[in-house]
């Protein structure tokens, strides 16, 4: 099994942490994992992304150009990375703030109104967990239970009361993923 995914969006949308949660979960499931953030002054521009690889065998390069899955949380990221999805791969994006939707037809395009949903769930911070839920539903890279275990491990005690909310978010993301209709 090998999953190569990139999470991209604005800083503050929690793209780096959702990647870390995935990597940590992979580690719990005894997989080889690698998490590689974009770094340096691009951050100034406000955009951020991270590449996560989860694999059964040794991982070679942490930086890759084509992905099984691209998760884009804003327009610039969508524009930049939609072409990097491998044919037959998956493109998940937050449809709330997208003006020009993706155009590719050779891949599985999954629009998720994540921000909108997060507002409905009264906590914009969990937007990334909704998206992660959609990702898991589509790619089965790791089990949801593992993610929750990971959260218990990485979140400081004082935030553990949020775990149920995160669980809902993951679930909701899964549902949205199944309900998703690509705007073709």
């Amino acid at each position: 099994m090998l999953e190569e995914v990139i999470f991209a969006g604005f800083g503050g949308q929690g793209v780096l942490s959702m990647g870390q949660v995935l990597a940590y979960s992979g580690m719990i499931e005894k997989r080889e994992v690698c998490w590689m953030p974009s770094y340096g002054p691009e951050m100034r521009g406000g955009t951020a992304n991270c590449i996560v690889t989860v694999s059964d065998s040794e991982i070679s390069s942490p930086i890759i150009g084509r992905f099984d899955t691209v998760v884009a949380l804003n327009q610039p990221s969508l524009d930049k990375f939609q072409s990097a999805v491998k044919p037959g791969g998956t493109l998940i994006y937050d449809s709330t703030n997208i003006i020009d939707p993706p155009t590719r037809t050779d891949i599985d395009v999954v629009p998720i109104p994540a921000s909108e949903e997060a507002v409905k769930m009264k906590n914009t911070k969990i937007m990334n967990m909704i998206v992660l839920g959609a990702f898991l539903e589509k790619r089965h890279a790791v089990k949801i239970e593992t993610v929750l275990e990971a959260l218990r491990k990485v979140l400081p005690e004082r935030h553990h009361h949020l775990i149920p909310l995160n669980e809902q978010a993951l679930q909701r993301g899964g549902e949205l993923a199944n309900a998703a209709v690509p705007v073709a």
Partner: protein
Amino acid sequence: MEKSMQEIEHHYDEMSIVCERPATLLDTRMHYCPGCGHGVAHRIVMEAVEELGIQEQTVGIAPVGCSVFAYHYMNIDMQEAAHGRATAVATGVKRCHPDKYVFTYQGDGDLAAIGTGETIHTVNRGENILIVFINNAIYGMTGGQMAPTTLINQKTSTTPYGREQQFMGNPLKITELLAQLPGAFYVTRQAVNTPLNVRRAKKAILNGFKYQKLNKGTSFVEIVSNCPTNWGMKPVESNKWLEEHMLPFFPLGDMKVPSKEDIEHA
């Protein structure tokens, strides 16, 4: 508070422009974070160049810091110097072209940490250049580490519990030191957090350029600025913090101004 919803109809054609982006500042989006003082500082430096009509005689030296890409925005000949060495590079330029207007634009890490030796000796030699010093009390580009100008107890990524004088020393008032040097001709500290301060800062920059004609020594303009991103604040808050914490320690004003004779003797 309530706001009217209809779009305001504009009347541009009935009026004249009283303030706009200077032509010397290229019409490209700057990479700076929202609300970053570097943008204002860039603009007033370029406004000065435009108003003095010296675009063709000006050579600027960019530092290593967030403003490393100054040359992407300033429409003049520029050199990108190694970290801390901008004044040495400027010396090389100015000594070969004494007739040109030469300035450096440097951050606090660049000018007052790794570049301390070059800064002091350049001013001590009285190199006839303008040094624009952007003091935001932090290393912006590298992600918010302690700068020589970081305040006591200020939290940064390398002073996670606040700067302790005992271990990390004191915020360095390098501008005060430089004002002591005979080579310094004009030394002032300004800010760009309010419209008034922006006006004053621009005046200082204008002086710094003008004085190069006199060939009497170095002009040094410190600009106390913000770093919303690494201070972890919204731009508006950051300017408040600047006013409440930085300005008391780095008071604004002139530290060394040319005498009448100095200026007439030219």
